């Protein structure tokens, strides 16, 4: 068993978990933060994307123990009260989600992308979303939402 201390969305947590526990399972099953989704088991789909110390990572590919001491933000930590994060707002405005299952991971990936590159070109957006799969939207409105979010975050 491993004792994990970490900060998630500004709140400190301590949990004792099996050594093999994945970070995504810690978030979902132990902390009840089910907004982070699991869509595959090969780190391809990106549904589990979260931020650790400001970087987007796939939480299915990391042991909970590796996140000991980390500062984590999940989709639940993006809105400020009633006010959506600009990326969330852009996804809403642009009809950039249909079933919504990939959306939390997409939003976390896009927020990190725009942090690193506030004015991405189309090619840079495609490259930035390569690790996130969506089966519903054809990505067209997602790319629109990235551009809108980039504008509003300027």
């Amino acid at each position, binding site marked *: 068993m491993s004792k994990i201390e970490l900060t998630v969305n500004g709140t400190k947590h301590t949990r004792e978990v099996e050594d093999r526990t994945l970070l995504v399972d810690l978030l979902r099953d132990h902390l009840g933060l089910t907004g982070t989704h699991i869509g*595959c088991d*090969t780190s*391809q*789909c990106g549904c589990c994307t979260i931020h650790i110390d400001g970087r987007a990572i796939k939480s299915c590919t990391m042991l909970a123990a590796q996140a000991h001491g980390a500062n984590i933000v999940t989709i639940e930590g993006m809105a400020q009260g009633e006010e959506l994060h600009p990326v969330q707002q852009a996804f809403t405005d642009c009809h950039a989600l249909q079933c919504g299952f990939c959306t939390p991971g997409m939003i976390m990936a896009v927020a990190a992308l725009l942090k690193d590159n506030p004015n991405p070109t189309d090619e840079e957006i495609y490259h930035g979303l390569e690790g996130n799969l969506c*089966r519903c939207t054809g990505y*067209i*409105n997602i*790319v629109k939402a990235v551009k809108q979010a980039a504008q509003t975050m300027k």
Partner: protein
Amino acid sequence: MPGQLHAAFLRSDHAHADIVSMNTAPALARPGVQAVFAGSDARAAGYVRFPLMSNFINRNGGAPIKSDRPVLAHGKVRFVGELVAMVVAKSASAAQDALDAIEIEYRDLPAAATINDALAKGAQPLHAGVPDNRSFIWEAGDADAVAHAFPGAAHVARIDVVSTRVVASPMEPRAYLVSYDAASDCYDFHTQAQGMAMLRWQLAQLTGLPEEKLRLHLYDVGGSFGQRSSAYPEHAALMMASKKLGRPVKWVSTRSEGFLSDAHGRGIQMSGQLALDKDGNFLAARYDFKCDMGAYLTPTGCSGHLRNVAACMTGVYKTPALYGDFSLVHTNAAPIAAYRGAGRPDIAYVVERLVDKAAADMNIDRAELRRRNFIPMTAFPYTSMTGGVYELSDFAGCLDKALKAADWAGFAHRRAAAARTGKLRGIGIGTVIEGTGLGRSPSDQIALEFDAQGKLTLCTATLSSGQSHETTFTQVVAQSLGVAHEFVGFCSSRRDNEILGNGSGGSRSMVGAGSVCQIASQKLIAQALPLAAEALEVEPSQIKFAHGVFNANEGGKSISLEALARRLAGTHPHPMNVLAESSVGSTYPNGCHIAEVEIDPETGVTQVASYFAADDCGVVINHSIVEGQVHGGVMQGAGQVFGEHAVYDRGSGQLLTGSFNDYYMPRAGLIPEIRMDEHPVPSTANVLGAKGVGESGCTASLPTLVSAVMDALRPLGVPELDMPLTPAKVWHAIQDAKAQQKVKAH
């Protein structure tokens, strides 16, 4: 849930084998394990036969042969991924760990993972009752008329293509929780589905239990695309576990399990011949369809491959003689079910490729050949020789809109410009139609109910898996009632199942349940009118309803529908509550898509340079939602065109594309932009005039994108290629064509 246990499944790693022996005792001894189940338990429960949503009879009076499929394999396994045993434990990891302890010995049988192998002489039958691996042979149309027409043809175009086997891959893996309640002898299911009625009926048929014993709790669904149209063995296996152990049992699929055992889609080998006169008029068409059904027939698989293919076998063309021959073939592969379009994209693909081939053979412009053979507007309703009854459509209008918007006439300049940069540019066209709107339930119901505060909720049996019913259904009601959109709440697929109707599927939700939203609203207004009269103290005949308000003809008195609802809110049930129902028939959305591609001959990589869609999906309720559906559909087609393919190893029957590492999925930028234009010809089959839009995108994009690639390659002498058009396949085709040319030059 309190007391919840977790299931894990042992899946066959053999494609075709007898189970010689199995010892589950070591697994039972593992920590946390509560029970282990095997095929004998499934047999004892009687959970062995899935229903078919099919009423097809062939000319010999035969129906598709329903072979047994015990929910845990019994005696024999028939595909890699088939359930063999189930471990139930206190945690998911404990259940998973214990799977390794099950001792099992297989005796391999020859595996036939492809249609051709399964139909080869001497192939090992999968099922005792299906000696030639064909569970059904069926035909549509008139063989004699076609045979009569072909000898008089000036030209016969031929094509052999395969609509590849693909994996639906909704982003949310399957996840089920089943809880048996001994007091009521009922099962509670927390599961994904496309609708209440369809899944519940299947589970009742499978288990022999009355439907009222099966209580479904349905929530948001992370995509479906037909994959969730069927009941699965895991549903019934969890029922056995929960009943025996008296506790809720949960299972969450991994993606790897999903690749192996979620129902796959498409998988049709198609051969077509089109007879034309010297002017390019179609005289007759003949098709052969060999449908890969996988190891077992699924409830929705065979009806889609038969009905939807036959209904649109003539495409958008007047073809005086038409015939199609169908075989449903068992292979040692995952079962096939409905997948976005369910036969509609497949038939559009072969028809349109055949038309393109005829145009190339006869040197006629592809758009012109289509126009020459369109069913004219004067010919509707048009009954095809294979059973389609098309309602009024404007194929030429759609075509003209698309040709203009996509600048078909100016393509030569763009091709020349691309050639100057070393690229091969091609333009592709697809003019397609599909039958939508049918459902298994005889009608759709909508309830409009007011709560104790007078707040309105719309209740429907149809379940969204991303189609935005919560937006569009409430929009129809709000507009019909003249109230604010926010006034209308939404509730779908209620547990008590008071509301009947179809699930989503076949692009039918707006056509069916959506139409009933309008009918229910009108019923509500009629029912509320005397109540408004009472409130205003005038005769009902003196009241008129307009824009959400009941107005008295004289005296200036009025009351809004919302105010009336609040005023009457104390009574239960609320006197303005209504339940409306209606049944709707088939509608036929259609359209013309035009795409351009550029191929780099050095790498074989294809870029989609432009994509234009002119669609007649009838009256559009919400443009954003329609556009989103077309985007998603076009991209799913593009996935199949450029890479998606579920590949089984021929010898071993192992799935070679078993993860997102190996299975191509469309990613951002595959099609940078889709321009759309609506060309609505209102449907006369429902009150909204809607025609359905969920599947039209991929119905059109399969033929359109392949048409564009072939147009880019044809000048090099590349022969007809087939999906998936991967860079490797395209590059090799270009190299081969160049080598041929060199040989000719010498």
